[in-house]
């Protein structure tokens, strides 16, 4: 029986921010691209702000100078491989594609010159470089008086906790709960976002909420201002309430993250790139220092994808692409690439306090300055699979994903000659 095979100019593994950006950029450059993913990626779980550098280790007011310092101090950090210019270019490119996407009028704002401090669901202030317009009004410097609004059906969002912590940060905050009629006892932000898409429901919500509001008070809502047309929903809610309104990121599912996924997915499709979900890469073919093909479990049999270039954007420990097995051996599970940053035999792998810097945390695929994997010269690595960063401490995950996906496409794209065979 013949092997099932498809040919592409580049194959990207992973459909989170890094993979979708790499795939889109390659496709925009004229390459025939296929993005393979086991499932939907990290976008649906993250706040969808683009955090470039939030802590180093103190809170960073402006990412650009802090990036320069980080690059000088840590040559092993992904940002040192990418450089500030690439990060800036990637951010500008991203900000340009968002309004061309499927959400009319929806934009991201911000830059490397200034971190915006936005309230989290627990009322901490989190620094982000680029934020969606639906969150922009939550910027701490613009908040004097705020009302944090919850609804009893949304059980994972506690407006009073959020408000109390904002108070501690010096913002006059209070909490209200609006009991709106729903057809179920509990509902997550996804269900509520679909309600917000409905103009009639929205009107009812706003009229109930406006009874409880005080003058000169901004409104912070869990991120649920619609999936179809958040720009219009925000404008409408602000108009009805007669005040500034903003979204606060929530526990998953992340509504702004779903929007981000749709924006990136549709950019990929618009550029002619393909996306295959359910396609877990289970093996690869090699010729010396090159990977020549990857195979996925399709229904019934394996399907093999051949390409001159591969981008590994499969994530790190959190996605399961890198694992520490029960024999204390660390693996890159997708292509079996060599890792960097693994503590030496006998050195501590973890420290006792959860929030401390964990020695295992900087583990990633060993790459050169062009993001090429060691031992696989046609595999470029992007996103959380890169070594040297601790995104959850640095507030750097999306910045690294976006910029390294962008850069990987640059490196591969410069050498991809679009094939005539697969039009």
């Amino acid at each position, binding site marked *: *029986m*013949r092997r*099932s*095979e*498809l*040919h592409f100019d580049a194959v990207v593994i992973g459909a989170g921010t890094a993979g979708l950006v790499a795939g889109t950029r390659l496709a925009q450059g004229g390459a025939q691209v*296929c993005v393979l*993913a*086991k*499932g*939907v*990626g990290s976008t*649906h*779980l993250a706040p969808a702000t683009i955090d470039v550098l939030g802590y180093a280790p103190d809170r960073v007011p402006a990412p650009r100078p802090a990036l320069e310092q980080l690059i000088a101090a840590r040559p092993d950090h992904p940002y040192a491989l990418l450089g500030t210019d690439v990060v800036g270019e990637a951010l500008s490119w991203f900000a340009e594609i968002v309004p061309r996407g*499927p959400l009319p009028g929806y934009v991201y704002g911000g830059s490397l010159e200034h971190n915006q401090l936005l309230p989290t669901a627990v009322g901490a202030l989190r620094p982000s470089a680029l934020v969606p317009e639906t969150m922009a009004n939550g910027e701490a410097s613009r908040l004097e008086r705020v009302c944090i609004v919850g609804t009893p059906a949304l059980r994972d969002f506690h407006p009073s906790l959020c408000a109390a912590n904002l108070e501690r940060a010096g913002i006059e905050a209070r909490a209200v709960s609006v009991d709106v009629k729903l*057809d*179920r006892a509990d509902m*997550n932000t*996804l*269900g509520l976002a*679909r309600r917000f898409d409905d103009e009639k429901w929205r009107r009812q919500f706003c009229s109930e909420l406006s009874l409880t509001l005080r003058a000169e008070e901004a409104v912070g809502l869990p991120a649920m201002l619609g999936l179809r047309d958040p720009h219009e929903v925000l404008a409408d809610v602000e108009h009805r309430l007669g005040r500034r309104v903003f979204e606060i990121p929530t526990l*998953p*599912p992340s509504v702004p993250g*779903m929007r981000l996924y749709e924006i990136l997915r*549709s950019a990929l*499709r618009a550029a002619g790139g*393909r*996306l*295959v*979900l*359910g*396609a*877990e890469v289970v093996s690869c073919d090699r010729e010396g220092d090159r990977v020549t093909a990857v195979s*996925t*479990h*399709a*229904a*019934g*049999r394996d*399907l093999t994808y051949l390409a001159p270039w591969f981008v590994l954007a499969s994530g790190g420990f959190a*996605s*399961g692409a890198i694992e520490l097995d029960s024999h204390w051996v660390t693996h890159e599970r997708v292509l079996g690439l060599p890792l960097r940053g693994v503590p030496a035999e006998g050195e501590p792998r973890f420290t006792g306090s959860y929030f401390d810097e964990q020695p295992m945390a900087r583990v990633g695929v060993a790459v050169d300055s062009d993001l090429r994997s060691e031992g696989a010269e046609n595999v470029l690595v992007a996103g959380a699979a890169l070594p040297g960063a601790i995104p959850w401490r640095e507030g750097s995950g999306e910045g690294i994903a976006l910029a390294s996906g962008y850069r990987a496409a640059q490196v591969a794209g410069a050498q991809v000659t679009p094939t005539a*065979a*697969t*039009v």
Partner: protein
Amino acid sequence: MSGPDDGELFVAELLRGSLDHCVKCTICETACPVSNATPLFPGPKYAGPQSERYRVADEPTVDASVDYCSGCGICSQVCPQGVKIAEINAQARHKLKRQKGFPLRDRVITRPTWLGRAGTPTAPIANFTLRFKPFRILGEKVLGVHRDAPAPAFAGRRFSKWARKRAAGARVSADSPARKVVYFHGCGTEYYEPWEGEKVVEILEHNGFEVVVPKQDCCGLPLQSSGLFEEGRKVVIRLAKALRQHVTDEDTIIVGNATSCTLMLKREAREILSLQDDPDLKFVSERTYDICELLLELHHRGELKTDFSPINESVAYHAPCQQQGHWVGKPALDLLALVPGLDVREMNARCCGIAGTYGLKVEKYDIAMAVGRDLFDQVAASGAPAVACDSETCRWQIHHGTQLPSVHPIDYLHRAYGLAQNGAGRNGSG
């Protein structure tokens, strides 16, 4: 094996084992078309990984809502951790219905072969009756099939008869021995849309294949999706044996145009019906292709004829859930892109709602229509005059929801090859 024996328990345990990977990330919930349309189904995570801990073998079922899962399988496809959510829920639905009893309806509408055999010779009367409102109201009251649910018309002729006649006639002999393909046409082609099968055969022959059409029956998917596992096993194993007989060399493959039925052969029967080790099914499963999947693969090998004439039209394309379940992307889009002039608009809605027989059932019809609303609206917004879709029940639902003609993507390839002038093309499409 065809009964609930050790093998079944083993596979069920494998499915269940995938639960350990669930991190409760809710990505399946964001993608579920049903839970986003009705509170009656709480969602794949609640009904699956979260409820599973209450499900104990040989204990009474704890389920009620899992019957509202349509079995579309999108949850398993989007899961980043590889949890077999839809498969686990199918097992739970089977147990629920086995304990609470199957309505007569579920035993009737899941037997397309019976219906087809009864309806074909009496097509004019049968079709009239199926469109006769008082009869449909009666059918709803007595049987529980919703009065407005889309009912395809019997073609009044059977595809297999055409195929036998064609096989008996003179075939143009090729210079080199042709590669053989065994055609699995399924019940939709046999009784309702024989012209789709005629087109498949002509396209394959145009590309140098010798097409063999074995005598065949249902794949058992409707039975499986209604929880009738024992009956489904018998039917799918019988089909696997029938197809396997004709695979006589290493190069021969099996191809089908009913995408949900080819998925049943490739994976669903093996996983959901716990037939992982059935030798006939395993053999068939590894060799089965969806028609667009096969043609795209040929194209990537440089073996597909691309002598396409222009078609200056636009068409909306919807990839049905079961096609997405093949985990091969959307081959139809790449193929349609080869036709000059054809303006293809990819729809981005999840599901048309029908899910095989789900949307026919009186208690589920409204849910199915609510699920399909996104797609129907997108089709209308696209302005396309027709909708291409790989699954027949989805095409009937799309036609029902949009009033537009809905055809298999290969219809466009068939036309672009110029095969419509002299060959098949006689259809009652719509």
